[in-house]
């Protein structure tokens, strides 16, 4: 009799993924897994290909080679809305709220366009209410979204992502531009999402936050995977220190 494998089947499996723009190779044979309920930190220098990786996984760009499987299904080349409907949702580097719309409406858009099987379980309004409550936004639901502080705008982004009913959340530098208190709040929310069983791929330049939140860290540089492992182990790898962390961080850990 076959024994159960030590790890459950991966939620997301990226294998040998490459993306070429004209003559520029942005991603070159990148591969990693994300398991259910796991937080994977993704770090690397500017221009390493982190955002390109998100763009390919979320369907904004077609892959040039390699495979992406989500829930055991190949998603390479699917449209962004199809990938979102399967349960993989992302945030964008620059705060991307729908201007002129209230906080409620910004989140409600995502609730309205959930796939039918999720819409049957919970009404769109209930879904929006739950997402707003989770992110602590009930009091400003009628504010115009872009008039909020940056920290609250990031919360709206997370609430909107939550309203889609994701299994996997990909955050692209969600802490950028936030003060310490706002960062702390967002990290708490992401930990809450993790407790609810949602996997997260966490792209961030604030290495201390990455090391704190992540179960596993993937380092990419110049479009290639440089290292992968537990946060502490990755932080001690000489090649990671030399290309990204710098000596000062290593001594601080």
């Amino acid at each position, binding site marked *: 009799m076959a024994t159960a494998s030590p790890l459950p089947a991966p939620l997301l499996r990226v294998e040998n993924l490459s993306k070429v723009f004209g003559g520029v190779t942005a991603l070159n044979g990148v591969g990693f897994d994300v398991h259910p309920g796991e937080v994977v930190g993704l770090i690397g220098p500017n221009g390493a290909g982190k955002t390109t990786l998100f763009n390919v996984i979320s*369907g904004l760009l077609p892959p040039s080679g390699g495979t992406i499987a989500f829930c055991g299904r190949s998603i390479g080349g699917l449209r962004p809305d199809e990938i979102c409907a399967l349960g993989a949702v992302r945030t964008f580097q620059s705060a991307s709220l729908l201007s002129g719309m209230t906080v409620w409406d910004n989140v409600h*858009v995502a609730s309205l366009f959930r796939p039918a099987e999720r819409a049957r379980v919970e009404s769109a309004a209930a879904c929006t209410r739950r997402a707003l409550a989770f992110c602590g936004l009930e009091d400003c639901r009628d504010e115009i979204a872009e*008039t909020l502080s940056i920290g609250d705008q990031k919360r709206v982004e997370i609430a909107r992502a939550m309203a889609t009913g994701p299994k996997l959340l990909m955050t692209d530098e969600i802490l950028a531009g936030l003060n310490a208190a706002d960062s702390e709040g967002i990290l708490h929310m992401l930990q809450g999402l993790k407790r609810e069983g949602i996997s997260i791929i966490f792209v961030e330049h604030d290495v201390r936050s990455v090391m704190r939140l992540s179960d596993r860290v993937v380092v990419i540089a110049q479009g290639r995977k440089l290292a992968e492992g537990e946060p502490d182990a990755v932080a001690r790898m000489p090649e990671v220190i030399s290309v990204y962390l710098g000596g000062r961080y290593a001594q601080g850990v």
Partner: protein
Amino acid sequence: MNFVSMAYAIRTGPVRNQLLCLAVFLLVVALCPLVMNDYWLRLMVFVFVNIGLASSWNLIGGFGGYASFGHGVFFGVGAFAGAVGMVRFGLPLPAVMVIGGALSAALAALFVPVFRQKGLYFALSTLAVMLVFETVLQRWTFTRGLRSYDLGWTLAPSLPLEGFFYLFLGLLGLIVGSIIVVVRSKIGYALHAIRKDEVLASSIGVRTTKYKAITFMISAAWPGVLGAAFAPFLAYVSVQSVFDVSITLNMILITIFGGAGTVIGPIVGGIALSIIDQIAWGNFLEYHRLIYGALIVAITTLHPGGLASVFWGWVERRRSAAKPVPRPSAPGHPPTSAPRRA
């Protein structure tokens, strides 16, 4: 309740109240034949058609942010459906109106590949499609193209002038009513998201192509219906008269002058431009075009949101003056396209 808070309540309130407002407006206008002579009634019909066409254009161009420069093709196809249907097949007016709308919607469905393009490229592609259709209808014997029949179709007016007045007023009510309902529905949310950030919209699950296609078909069906109804009113339909590029330009001008992306914009714009047109014609015939053009440039430069944004800006200022804490309005965008929940 004063005027400012009432206007605000209608804008942000439930769809039912907006439809009620529309009904009151239509009822008041419906009394016009009691006091107006034929000249003014005829003029009013043109205003209704212009507002109806502009409102239809506004759905895809204003709310969706996809400016179609060939929208006149749907009016032209509708007018030809009316003329051919009534003269050649002896169909009644309601039947050709349905056929005109259906043909235009079907034609719009063929546009779906064009939606891969954005901005100027989309505008130019729609313009090109219109020119293609103009040529086809000019050459096709079925539509009495140049080759073997007389040019154009002559129709007997099937209704008295008052009849046309109420027909077009009723159509205007249906068009504006449908737009009020659509922009507050799921489609309205999709359109708002698409206009603001199409990449984001698709990333949060909006099937952008589907909603653009639905919207484009609705915004094409109404000009088709209007065109079919317009054929017996005009009494003469030819490619020159119903495929004129000025029909498309008028839709765009009226919408932008009044306020693109708002329900009220094309209504205000259509009425205002007709009044300006009349005054300029009557008093300054030689400089008529100059005055008309200068006013449009002035309004769109000073207030890119059109007359509607001038009005809502005033309402917002009055509201924030009345309240101790000012609430900033959405910059550059008149916020009617999506509902607020209170």
